[in-house]
């Protein structure tokens, strides 16, 4: 650091350029690894039709064998099921999906390192501009998916989650990139961490829910036309499941977004003197909130569940994207922190 200029920073944290560069390299590494993960997931999906045929064949064998063996084993459990569940065949090992999952974990770790190093290099939470929102956002998306994968078998959805993550990483590196720097005075507050972290977390859920909504439409279309051409999509659960999954994700995202709105209002009161000033970002945050509220109501309204509700959730995500890109970059307001 230049001693002449660092004297003038009045005790503020000086930006460490070396660490920032290392952080960038971790981002590139993560992008490469996630690209490979995507290819692995694609290979897994492509292998699904063959796998399904083999599984059907084995299930037949298993049922025959079970019939031959006959009877109930009879256990010592205190509560026993009266009817034994249908014969289950151990599923085939999905090598490509396994590789995809491992690579996703590695990609997430690399991305995590990128985020941490960026934070260390600027000496503050990395939530100050669009580049930083993007890397943290993509980290949240992939992490949410990986945690989900520990509880359920969601390997078939891998490509549809890793894809958007990779896309966000690439946008971050190529379009939104902002050199590591310090914050303007109004952002220097602990509410930055609370408000922006929760906002990014809810956007991560909105993103995954958008993926599942698109899958809902694809599966619904395939079911409606009785599609047999794109058999690899049978690996993805049916439209009803995708619909439920979307709902499950959005009922997590919606309270988080509500909190974002409240935390933003609290911070606005502290920084700008009023909790609500109809700033474009505030307006769009409210619009998103209202659209997703409409989605939740639609699902409870006769004649609006299914496709119509799904359209509303798509509209909601379009608003999320608009809020993140157009409002940040082109609309004049008090939330002009894109760094671009």
């Amino acid at each position, binding site marked *: 650091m230049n001693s002449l200029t660092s004297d003038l920073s009045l005790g503020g944290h000086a930006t460490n350029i070396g660490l920032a560069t290392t952080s960038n390299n971790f981002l590139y590494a993560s992008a490469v690894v996630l690209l490979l993960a995507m290819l692995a997931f694609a290979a897994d999906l492509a292998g699904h039709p063959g796998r399904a045929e083999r599984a059907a064949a084995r299930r037949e064998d298993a049922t025959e064998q079970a019939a031959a063996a006959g009877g109930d084993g009879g256990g010592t459990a205190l*509560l026993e099921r009266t009817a034994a569940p249908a014969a289950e065949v151990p599923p085939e090992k999905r090598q490509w999906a396994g590789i995809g999952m491992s690579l996703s974990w590695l990609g997430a770790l690399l991305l995590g390192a990128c985020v941490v190093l960026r934070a260390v290099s600027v000496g503050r939470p990395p939530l100050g501009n669009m580049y930083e929102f993007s890397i943290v956002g993509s980290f949240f998306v992939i992490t949410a998916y990986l945690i989900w994968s520990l509880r359920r078998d969601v390997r078939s959805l891998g490509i549809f989650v890793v894809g958007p993550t990779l896309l966000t990483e690439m946008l971050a590196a190529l379009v939104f990139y902002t050199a590591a720097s*310090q914050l303007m*005075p109004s952002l*220097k507050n602990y509410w930055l961490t609370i408000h922006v972290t929760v906002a990014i977390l809810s956007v991560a859920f909105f993103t995954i829910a958008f993926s599942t909504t698109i899958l809902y439409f694809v599966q619904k279309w395939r079911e409606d036309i009785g599609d047999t051409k794109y058999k690899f999509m049978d690996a993805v659960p049916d439209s009803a499941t995708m619909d439920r999954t979307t709902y499950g994700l959005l009922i997590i995202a919606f309270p988080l977004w509500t909190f974002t709105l409240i935390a933003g209002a609290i911070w606005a009161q502290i920084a700008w003197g*009023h909790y609500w000033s109809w700033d474009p970002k505030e307006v769009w945050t409210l*619009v998103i909130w*209202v659209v997703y509220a*409409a989605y939740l109501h639609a699902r409870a309204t*006769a004649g609006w569940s299914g496709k119509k509700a799904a359209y509303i959730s798509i509209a909601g995500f379009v608003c999320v994207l608009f809020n993140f890109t157009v409002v940040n970059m082109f609309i004049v307001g008090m939330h002009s922190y894109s760094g671009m």
Partner: protein
Amino acid sequence: MSTETDNDAHQVAKAANASATGKSARKTPINGPKLGLLGTLRWLWRQLTSMRTALFLLLLLAVAAVPGSIFPQRSIDAPRVTSYLQDHKTMGPWLDRLSMFDVYSAPWFAAIYLLLLVSIIGCVVPRIGVHLKALRSPLPRVPRRLGRLPASAERVSAAKQSDVVEATRAVLRRKGYRVRVDEPADGSQAIVAEGGRLRETGNLLFHTCLIVVVLAVAADHLMGWRGDVIVPEGGQPFVSSAGSFNTLDLGPWVHSDDIKPWSLDIKKLDVTFERNVPKDSPQYGQPRDFIASVSTQDPLGSKPVNELLKVNGAVNLGGTSVYLLGNGYAPMVTVRDPSGKVIYQQATPFLPQGNTYKSVGAIKVPAASPKELGFFGMFLPTAAFDSKQGPISTFPDTDRPALVLGAYQGDLFPDALPQSVYTLNTKKMTQVMDGKQPWSAVVYAGQSAKLPDGTTISLDKTVPRWAGLSARYDPGKTTALLAALIGLAGLIMSMTLRRRRIFVKVGVEPDDDAKKPSGAPARTLITAGALAKGEDPRLQVALDSLLEGVGERLASNPKKQQAGS
């Protein structure tokens, strides 16, 4: 199926509509029941409070809010609206007629949110009544065939019937269910349980809180006020009163004597700008810190208190919060008449125009004679001259401060109206000429310039700053915050809790079961079924895990189990 309901509802609505209008009803061969005035009102009310209408209004609200983020708004940035109207001579007035520059106070916007509010109230109030009744109503009877419920399960156990009943009751209780154990009948005993009644409570809480938030915001609008003022550093203390703010925005229910007197003296304003990055970086010259050391008296005349006023750190005075929202330069300017007498000497605030603090302003010298004198121009904290743009500032801090000025002579205040301190009203003034060219001068700090008539203007070496303060009184903000947080809790409750009814019958396993080894003692048969209100994809999982819990509980009480077998 849902589309059928849709059509039915639509037809009913059509019929009702037809009979309500009367004339068209006569034309149609099938006459619906006449609704009358009361009936029509009831029908309208039912339409307004239906979920479909609420859904439509929600989407409409989202769409209606958008123009306010695209067009400049008077309430946020009035000068931008003016310049927009100047740039768009044809479109502008039309947009203005449609309230596109005052979207959030427009009648059509108000119509949407008021209808939505009425719709919410109309939906929530009856539901509160129904819910209160449901909370007190007894649990239902056990259905005869549990296997027909959306989720069902069957288990057998070697444990004694009464133990199973006890274990089931305990597990359900622990899960927060309301439980009733029926008297044994026909050799079997039934347990009825209901859970997740707080889901509806949370839902109603959320909607009620939403209404409270809107009311609190309305209260702030009616009873709150905001005063903005520019206070130079090291100058006279600012004393709060209705007349002392530069702009004062009082709510309709506020009296100007509600503004309590207090004083605030800006002793020093520290501003830091970014110098630690390359000069071509967009971050170069960005603000990093604004901190004002202030001395306050609240109430006026009490012992002065020294405080720090920061961005993100307001000071509370006289029931208001005082914020530091802006800053700029107030160069100390001295004007002397040709004889050398000082006719003007004060810190004159200039208004910054961007990140480099190139600022515009005016110096009004009414004491000049024979004609009043006014200077207009720019203050440049770090002056430079660009071949294309002319005078510019290259950095927001005072590295090379200078004034770039022109002058007018004549009547400074032609009409007794209040005018901006940053501009001259030149209606009754003429520009000061130097030969055939208008007079202009660049005055660097510590230097002076002379007008053709011998009047001099000089700029002091140190340039004081000014702080832009905003005093705000928002009586509804605490209510709004509390309601929002309680509403959020209600929302989470209504999203996570599931309304479920669980029925369990504990009886004896029938003898005719072929699978059962003959001669073994009769085992206990447990049949269970579950019913959910609304969609509940995990109902079966919940029922299975409940029974698993019962099994575990029986296993942890081995004594009872032995006694049973």
